[in-house]
């Protein structure tokens, strides 16, 4: 009856496993159907990653994790922040410009730049929040629009501040000083590359997400709003303020997405900076069921598929995009599996409730005029 019930855990685990199997089968069918080498594809994807690739998986997962958490904050209160994509780009641009100026010494520069990113991301999200609260504009539309507007605005500003390197055709902000570049952690033995130092950020964010949402009053209010807006209002939650707060928090977290990349890899923001992370975050948050631990697993799975598929063209001669199909099918399969399990579980729960009530009734007959 408590949440830690072995049956529950078993049911909970069976969903992802089932989903992976289904994804495997469906993708294989597609491959066979179109005459592509099934065995090579799977042996490439499922091959044990080399240490170098393990690092890449962890790194990619770190970034995905931050993105998914940013999205999940909104989801937990029924806010659909599609705008994480634009928010992180605005934020990383602002942080890159700031850090590139090297106004502050090494480490301090990083800390303040991260704050700058959070402020910028939060600010961009606040536009959508304001429009929702004050003007009733659905955040779904406004964030779609703001993503596109972010592209234009960042492009425009980037051209203004760009530091064009001799002989380069790329365009980017000034490279951050070396003292602020993070070399990375040597976590995986045998790898030449390193895990982003700012994986720490992901861990902290994950913990805070769990703690704030699960343990604090603010988190309770936020979840209550997500579960039933009307009940939250009646319980004293100031929903408009909550929308503002959650949206801005989501944007501020979105601001963190680019930080590991900025300080651990690219060292500037430019046209080749990774894009589309916000959209990946939506899928991963949904796959991880908006749960801090679930999202961690989902990020790792997503990153694993991404990295392992890099070699597909080289080893199997199959378009790397097959991995999108696998990811999409997993997402479908997971939710369908959860839904089937939820139904089973609900039925079992009702049976149990009824049984126990019947037992209670037998044990202590009729109080207060209830049927004997």
């Amino acid at each position: 009856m408590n949440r830690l019930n072995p049956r529950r855990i078993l049911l909970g685990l069976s969903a992802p496993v089932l989903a992976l199997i289904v994804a495997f089968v469906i993708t294989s069918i597609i491959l066979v159907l179109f005459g592509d080498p099934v065995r090579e594809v799977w042996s490439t994807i499922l091959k044990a990653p080399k240490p170098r690739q393990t690092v890449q998986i962890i790194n990619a997962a770190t970034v995905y994790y931050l993105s998914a958490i940013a999205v999940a904050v909104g989801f937990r209160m029924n806010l659909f922040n599609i705008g994480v994509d634009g928010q992180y780009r605005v934020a990383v641009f602002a942080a890159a410009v700031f850090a590139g100026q090297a106004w502050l010494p090494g480490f301090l520069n990083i800390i303040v730049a991260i704050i700058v990113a959070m402020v910028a991301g939060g600010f961009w999200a606040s536009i959508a929040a304001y429009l929702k609260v004050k003007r009733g504009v659905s955040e779904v539309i406004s964030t779609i629009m703001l993503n596109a507007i972010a592209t234009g605005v960042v492009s425009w500003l980037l051209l203004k501040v760009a530091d064009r390197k001799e002989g380069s055709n790329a365009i980017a902000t000034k490279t951050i000083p070396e003292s602020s570049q993070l070399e990375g952690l040597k976590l995986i033995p045998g790898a030449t590359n390193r895990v982003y130092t700012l994986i720490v950020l992901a861990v902290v964010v994950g913990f805070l997400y769990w703690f704030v949402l699960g343990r604090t009053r603010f988190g309770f209010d936020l979840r209550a709003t997500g579960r039933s807006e009307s009940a939250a209002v009646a319980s004293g939650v100031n929903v408009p303020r909550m929308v503002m707060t959650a949206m801005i928090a989501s944007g501020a977290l979105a601001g963190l997405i680019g930080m590991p990349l900025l300080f651990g890899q690219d060292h500037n923001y430019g046209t080749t900076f990774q894009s589309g992370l916000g959209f990946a975050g939506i899928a991963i948050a949904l796959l991880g069921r908006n749960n801090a631990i679930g999202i961690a697993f989902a990020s790792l799975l997503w990153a694993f598929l991404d990295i392992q598929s890099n070699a597909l063209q080289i080893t199997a001669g199959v378009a790397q995009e097959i991995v999108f199909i696998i990811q999409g099918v997993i997402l479908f399969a997971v939710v369908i599996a959860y839904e089937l399990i939820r139904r089973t579980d609900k039925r079992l729960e009702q049976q149990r409730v009824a049984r126990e009530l019947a037992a209670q009734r037998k044990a202590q007959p009729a109080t207060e005029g209830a049927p004997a």
Partner: protein
Amino acid sequence: MSAAGLEVGTQTVVGAPRKRRRFGAREWAIAALGALVVVSILRVVTGAGDIVSSGALAAAIGLAVPIGLAGLGGLWSERAGVVNIGLEGMMILGTWGAGYFGYHYGPWAGVLGAIVMGMVGGLIHAIATVTFGVDQIVSGVALNIIGLGVAKYLAARFFTGLPGGGPTQSPPIDPLPSFTIPGVSSGLGTIEKKDWFFVSDLAAVLRAVCTNMSVLTIIALLLFAGTWWALWRTPFGLRLRSCGESPVAAESLGVNVIRYKFLAVVVSGGLAGLGGGFLALVAANIYRDGQTGGRGYIGLAAMIFGNWRPGGLLGGAALFGYTDAVQLRGGGTVHAFLLLFAVILVAVGVWQIVRNRRLVQGILALVVGALVAWWYFATDAVPAELTGTTPYVTTLLVLAFASQRLRMPAADGQIYRKGEGH
């Protein structure tokens, strides 16, 4: 999470039995003419001739159609109570279908192929959301990922090695027929060139619709009219809409809710796929990787913008297509819009202060209006990087002023399971 979202900010007017103003054909016509007068004035004042040129309007139609079709897909689905964020994925499938079938079997097969591929997307969404009752947002997001993957994979698989084709594009497809009304078009062209106030502008509008209209554009317009008729004038439509408003009530009256929802979502996919097909068959004459460029999302936005109604959606798509066209065609039109924005903002500011007695909002509007006006007069072009955002900014502004009246189908986004609602 549920797909319906929070209601905050969408204030409903309380009390006083709502007097529903009928916004019929006449009102629409008046509004359209009014808008035309405004842009005529703008054209004369700013000298930006492209504001109402037949070319810009024709381009606007071309850009609006795929968005409109995607939105129409969204409309079908959401009117039956299923949120469809997967329109983009369905559109992408449509572009591939158009490319593949269009190349091998001719453009009409391409049209069919686009619809069928879109329907496959719709079918997946329907199975997930209607049959299995999973969260509609999750399903839509997954579908977008799959749509993208499938199209790229199939393109790489089937277009590589074809003459003019490759992993990212199909070989060229033969064009679909298009129509020009011969005498009228050139006659109107003459009037348009005169630059007469309003008259030339009206001529431009008329010319845009009788010159080089693709048959697919005409089909799209018919689909709009047909959707309106089917959903609001037939028993079928009543049943379908009732599934989006109150599926339990519909079920209690013997409506097979599951069947209608399923059908609606599949049709939705077909329409979005056709929108993708338009991109591949008319807007370009090839399938191209990434061709949709987020138009599925824009279609969804246009549908919400249009208050889940075909007429409104048409307006939203047209607004978007038009602003996108003028910004792509360049030449200072966007700059001219600054003046329009400034004037509107000042008008709103005055209105707020004089009529609504909202000093803060009014002054804010006035200040922003003044800033925009200053921007207009102090520069002679909007930076190229920013003109691209015109359609998005415009949409956002229009919504900010007018979105309180939007109302989505009451049961939109809610999961429905047979027999559980009673």
